[in-house]
């Protein structure tokens, strides 16, 4: 917009603020490049195949420092267990919020709760997991860790499922009833299949999010060098990285950088992939 402004101060202020806004956007992207670039650089110099194949080995033992194999397997197990609990509950809650809202007193509060629960600090979820699942069992265990992760996952999956279901046009449902289907069959046979891709995307994003969580695992699954069983302290990539990064050994810190590169690389890849896929698979309106 070309505007003739006779107030010189206002004109120059406007030019300056315009430039500042561009600088601000550039600064944010600069931070992104700074953080991820450094992680890439530090991680690339310390990554090796050992990271994926060898378990962590204590200082002094042969083969020190080893890798993060058990931690990676641990994280995959934990998000698998969390997904087993969290995905069905989340999707069904989303279905309830989108399809069964009429005449229900439960829908509005639950939607509000989903929004609010996603703002709960993850460390508080860890405290809950400790009080509820570690204290009765007597020791840190994988179930508590997976449950804490599922606690974080359910509101995310519920909200994205609900939003995807709301995008399905009403004509699909009306056509289904016109053909005589029951409500359950409509939902399961018509509505849900039309947005399966988007729901899977939402689930994957939630899984990627909890794969990067550390705080809820700190005192539910704690951490370990090897997998001893689901009822024992359970290793995870994030806690392993944290332990190594805050420890005193330089070798372990190098491993921590490699682990961070793997984690951040996977998360970035995931996000890119998902955005690329969803750009083409929105439900046809």
């Amino acid at each position, binding site marked *: 917009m070309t505007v003739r402004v006779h107030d010189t101060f206002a004109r120059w202020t406007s030019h300056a603020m315009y430039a500042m806004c561009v600088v601000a956007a550039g600064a944010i992207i600069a931070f992104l490049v700074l953080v991820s670039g450094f992680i890439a650089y530090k991680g690339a110099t310390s990554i090796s195949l050992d990271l994926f194949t060898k378990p962590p080995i204590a200082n002094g033992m042969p083969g020190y420092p080893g890798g993060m194999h058990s931690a990676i397997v641990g994280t995959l197990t934990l998000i698998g267990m969390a997904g087993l609990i969290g995905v069905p509950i989340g999707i069904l809650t989303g279905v309830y919020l989108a399809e069964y809202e009429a005449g229900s007193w439960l829908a509005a509060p639950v939607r509000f709760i989903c929004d609010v629960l996603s703002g709960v600090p993850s460390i508080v979820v860890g405290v809950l997991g400790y009080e509820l699942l570690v204290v009765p069992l007597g020791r840190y265990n994988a179930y508590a860790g997976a449950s804490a992760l599922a606690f974080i996952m359910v509101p995310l999956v519920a909200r994205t499922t609900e939003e995807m279901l709301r995008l399905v046009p009403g004509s699909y449902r009306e056509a289904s009833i016109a053909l005589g289907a029951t409500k359950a069959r409509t939902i399961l046979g018509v509505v849900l299949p039309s947005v399966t891709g988007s729901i899977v995307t939402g689930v994957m994003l939630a899984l990627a999010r909890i794969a*990067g969580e550390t705080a809820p695992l700190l005192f539910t699954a704690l951490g370990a060098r090897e997998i001893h069983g689901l009822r024992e302290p359970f290793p995870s990539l994030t806690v392993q990285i944290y332990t190594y990064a805050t420890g005193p050994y330089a070798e372990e810190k190098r491993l921590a950088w490699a682990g961070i590169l793997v984690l951040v690389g996977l998360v970035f890849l995931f996000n890119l992939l998902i955005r690329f896929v969803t750009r083409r698979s929105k439900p046809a309106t």
Partner: protein
Amino acid sequence: MTVINYRSTEIEKPPIDGPGFVLVSSSSRRRFGGDAILHNLARLCAGIVLAMVVVLLGVLTLSAIPSVREFGLSFLATSEWRPNELEVPVLGPDGKVVIEDGETKNETLPPKFGALPVIYGTAVSSAIALVLAVPLSFGASLFLIRIAPKFLVAPVSFLIELLAAIPSIAYGMWGLFVLAPWLQQKEQRWFDLLGHVPGLGWMFYQSLTVGGQTVQRQLPATGRDMLCGGAILGIMILPIITAISRDVLRTVPRAQLEGAVALGATWWQSSKEMLKFARSALFGAVMLGLARAAGETMAVAMVIGNNNQIVPSPLAPAQTMSSLLANEFAEASGKLHNSALVEVALVLLVMSLMFNVVARYLIVGKGGSKVAAAH
């Protein structure tokens, strides 16, 4: 969306037999009750979500009761956090140490917990984060809405949101190994330049009262301090404030903008009008960022310096509520320590929930979920 009445699935009239019409449901399928199964299953899951919040608040409150009973409201106002017992000599009526049988009589003080330092730490680190993040975020959202050419908006938004995808420990490691050493150099230079300026002593020195004497102790400049924690938090909350304010500014009616320009406003003056129009929702965006900053754990725990004391200087190591939990919870000694930590978690939770609720109300209004739903 039209409300579809499912109760009338009974088909009274026989279907018209003709091309293209298919009778799908038979009476036996209707009587199976699959409808009720799905409905109740979905209702059960929604109930589980409701129960999740109740259980969260309930369990934390129950576990915090021993600490609440012990310290009451002074928990939020006192600064002493001592998980171990302390032996102090008993002072007689004249203020002098009592000596019995040639030995000073000692009394053992039980563990005492006060959350004021961590509340202070959370407040100040979040404030630093907001001071850093809000101008950058508002500027970036104005850029996205008003300055950026059409083809740049999507990629730049995507890049900014990618910042939100980076896990917290990644920020922590970057902060610990990159930002903290860099800040340490800078702080050393500041001390060399300004350390002897009379009014700025509070920034570089900490007053300690030891044995009745007040000493000025120079702060150990490790780079891991409140400033570093606030800076990392600021970077972490940039994407959420930018995304929400971008969405909010997009809903400002074009008439506002055009009206301001018609009255002769410069670019910045009309942008100010936009910001002013959306100020309550933008305030909500800032509150959401604040809530996120207050609850952030791992990055802060690695760079804040783990010092559970109130020191006025931002160059001093500190502790936030979440970093206290991350550092001390796993090794809590005794039931009272555990209970005090759970009480800190409860305070953190209630604070976060309040911020979130108020922020969403400001952004979305009394209606349903719109803009802020995805964040």
